[in-house]
């Protein structure tokens, strides 16, 4: 792996070898993976943990007392403990679901809304954190400032409507910006609203602290945190979860059943009907171990370098414009670009992939209200993570710049 000596990965230079996909060549070219906001690459330890379920433990969990089942269950619960420690929550507050989308739908179900209930959403909410509220509640949107941050004065005005829910996105998957989460969740909490936070993009970049926050429900996806797809979590305050009604019922959620009644099991099992993605939970546990051993301090330091490389490269390419703040503060290395005068970016994205090995994404990024509002069409999103280098970012933007020359 060639990593330029003078642009060291803040001590992360050795980790690229942990990610098998980075060794892959497409048409003789190495992969420049800049789509981590869609899903991150997986280190070998995660892949091994998933495989171990099939080679060593295969058995259903929480169903009976035989040795394989007990061992399989121990490891499944171990993954839950790891999520709890990572997010500073308690294990019974961690509900395993398939992904962030399901987590938010479950929170929505647990809360139970009518069309008369106001829900405050932000313009940059992902469709997953917008449609469930739109479907069942009365959504009002917080205006944004020129810096594309939520306008806190307007937010305070909306809170006077006594919304039942405030639906916040910790880090935007479009702009990479973090909102002032502590301030906003405190304001919402004080206004009597339940605070539901989409942390799909932030969980792999920043340390979350659920128990010392005003957040009532927090949603994350393993696949955006180095882990396998098929598993994510709804983390919810125990009291709310105890009162809530599960979305699915069936095997595993009850203590006993008679012909005409049933009694739910305690948290978190009440919410986990049916056989879950057991192997994915093992991989998720391994991913958390991987994140913990790198540490969020190093991750943030490295990401700052990547963001700096983005900003400097974009600044000297007049055809490219960036959606959102071009500042280093409060951001993840996620950059959405639009090309003045070019609305369909599919061809450009294809060319980046096939001629340069740059894997990135174009479209509305499941945040159409926002992207339409600012870009008036599609954007190209490049998102980097711990295994990316400054060289890769510079190369990707050079590539984009030269592809674009043929379109403007």
């Amino acid at each position, binding site marked *: 792996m060639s990593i330029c000596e003078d642009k060291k990965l803040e001590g992360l230079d050795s980790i690229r070898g942990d990610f098998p996909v980075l060794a892959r060549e497409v048409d003789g070219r190495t992969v420049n993976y800049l789509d981590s906001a869609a899903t991150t690459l997986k280190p070998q330890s995660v892949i091994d943990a998933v495989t171990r379920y099939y080679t060593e433990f295969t058995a259903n969990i929480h169903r009976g007392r035989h040795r394989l089942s007990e061992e399989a269950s121990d490891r499944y619960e171990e993954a839950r403990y790891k999520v709890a*420690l990572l997010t500073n929550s308690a294990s019974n507050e961690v509900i395993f679901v398939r992904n962030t989308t399901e987590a938010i739908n479950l929170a929505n179900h647990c809360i139970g809304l009518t069309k008369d209930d106001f829900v405050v959403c932000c313009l940059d909410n992902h469709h997953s954190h917008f449609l469930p509220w739109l479907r069942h509640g009365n959504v009002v949107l917080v205006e944004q400032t020129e810096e594309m941050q939520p306008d806190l004065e307007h937010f305070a005005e909306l809170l006077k409507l006594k919304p039942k829910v405030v639906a916040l996105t910790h880090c935007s998957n479009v702009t990479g910006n973090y909102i002032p989460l502590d301030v906003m969740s405190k304001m919402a909490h004080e206004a009597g609203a339940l605070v539901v936070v989409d942390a799909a993009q932030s969980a792999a970049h920043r340390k979350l602290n659920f128990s010392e926050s005003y957040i009532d429900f927090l949603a994350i996806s393993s696949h955006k945190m180095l882990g396998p797809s098929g598993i994510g979590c709804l983390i919810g305050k125990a009291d709310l979860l105890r009162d809530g009604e599960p979305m699915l019922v069936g095997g595993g959620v009850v203590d006993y059943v008679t012909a005409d009644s049933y009694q739910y099991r305690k948290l978190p099992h009440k919410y986990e009907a049916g056989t879950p993605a057991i192997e994915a939970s093992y991989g998720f546990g391994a991913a958390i171990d991987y994140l913990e051993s790198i540490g969020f301090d190093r991750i943030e330091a490295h990401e700052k370098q990547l963001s700096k490389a983005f900003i400097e490269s974009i600044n000297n390419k007049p055809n490219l414009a960036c959606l959102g703040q071009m500042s280093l503060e409060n951001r993840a290395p996620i950059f959405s670009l639009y090309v003045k005068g070019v609305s369909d970016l599919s061809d450009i994205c294809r060319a980046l992939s096939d001629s340069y090995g740059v894997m990135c994404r174009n479209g509305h990024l499941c945040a159409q209200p926002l992207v339409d509002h600012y870009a008036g069409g599609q954007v190209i999103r490049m998102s980097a993570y711990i295994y990316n280098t400054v060289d890769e970012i510079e190369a990707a933007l050079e590539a984009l710049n030269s592809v674009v020359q043929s379109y403007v």
Partner: protein
Amino acid sequence: MELHSLKYEQDERLMRCFGNLDKAKSEVEFAHKKVRYFKDSLNLNNEFSNSAGLNSVPISDKSVYRKNFPAGILSEGSSLKDPYVSRLQSSGTSGERLVSVIHSFKLAERMANCLSINPAFQYLSKVPRIKTCRYAAPNCSDVECANPRSTMQDRILADGTLVLPVYHDLLTTPDSMLRMAFDELHSYEPDLWYVDPMHLSILIKKAKSEGWAFDLDRKFSVLLTYTFATRALLRQISELCAGHAPVASVMAMSEFGFVGLGCEHGNLHLNDKDYFLEFIQMEGTHPDDNLWELVITSIGDRLCPHIRYQTNDIYHLHGACDCGNSMPRVSFLGRSKDLLRLPSGKYITPGSLDEVVGAPKWIDIYQLTEQEVGAYIFRFTGNKDCFSDAEKSQLRQKLQALLETENVRVDDVNYFPFERGGKFQLIRKS
């Protein structure tokens, strides 16, 4: 006290033994005659009859007793239907799982001999029917005490022990259940609180924050068991009990019942009357490290004799104790699976960790996690108003020295996971 060395295949390890060797050998002979597994596997040759001969008997372990349960390890003519046979289940789920059976009289005898170690507890031997409240991991009992809808009646065992309600993952136990445990601990009027120190500390903390007052005027005593009693836990328990109720740590195992007790000086003594105790120097250690693995042979167990049974528990051995009791004085350092081995070869035990952490006011519970070799996270919880950054960084330096690495993160947290069986690991490996 005998001191002799035992030859192993590779290296020579020291061994120290306590108890009556002749009785231990009779136990082996009994097992050889009456217990199918030992009948089939033991070969009592000439070597056995000379004085060091116990060494020729292979060491047994949990898996022997697990795999041969019940017919292979019960003595001929005994039956599980006997009303005096108690069935005890270990809390482990995988390599730890085990069902043990003990004759009630044997249990009582072992308990009485252990209680004799500490004068403050001796009166219990004379109480005709000790009323006990147990507050520990749910798997340690056969009743569903983790079921929030269970009643007190559901949780009273045949011997009159009331098992207090609690969840496996202790810190997720809801407030209503903590209140129930607190109330029952009083209304049942127990002579003995037989508790996991971690569980009791959580209840003490809750009671303090809610203003629930313990009734300390009734006569009762407190035995601590199940998890390692850290100095921080002992500090919290002694704040409540000092001057009111005697507190001691008891070494108990589901395979045997009582094995030892803390004396009036707070030193643990192991019972060498009901057991023959062999301490084997831990592999790869120097005698000065004073790290010994305990192997137990039961004495006079006619139901299910244990022969050179590996406990997987690690101890320090000490000299005579000021209390004057002649049973060997030891300190319990943890289970062998809870040890870490540093790249230098040094072992870190829960005991050695606890010595470094101590019992500052601001630590109630802590846990060390080895993320990978050479990388550690120390998590703690306690009174957040009571510590300064300087104290925190001092502790970090001490941990760095203990763990021989710079890579130690110290986090203050609100939650700690317990094993699915309900045990707490002071040292975890990721």
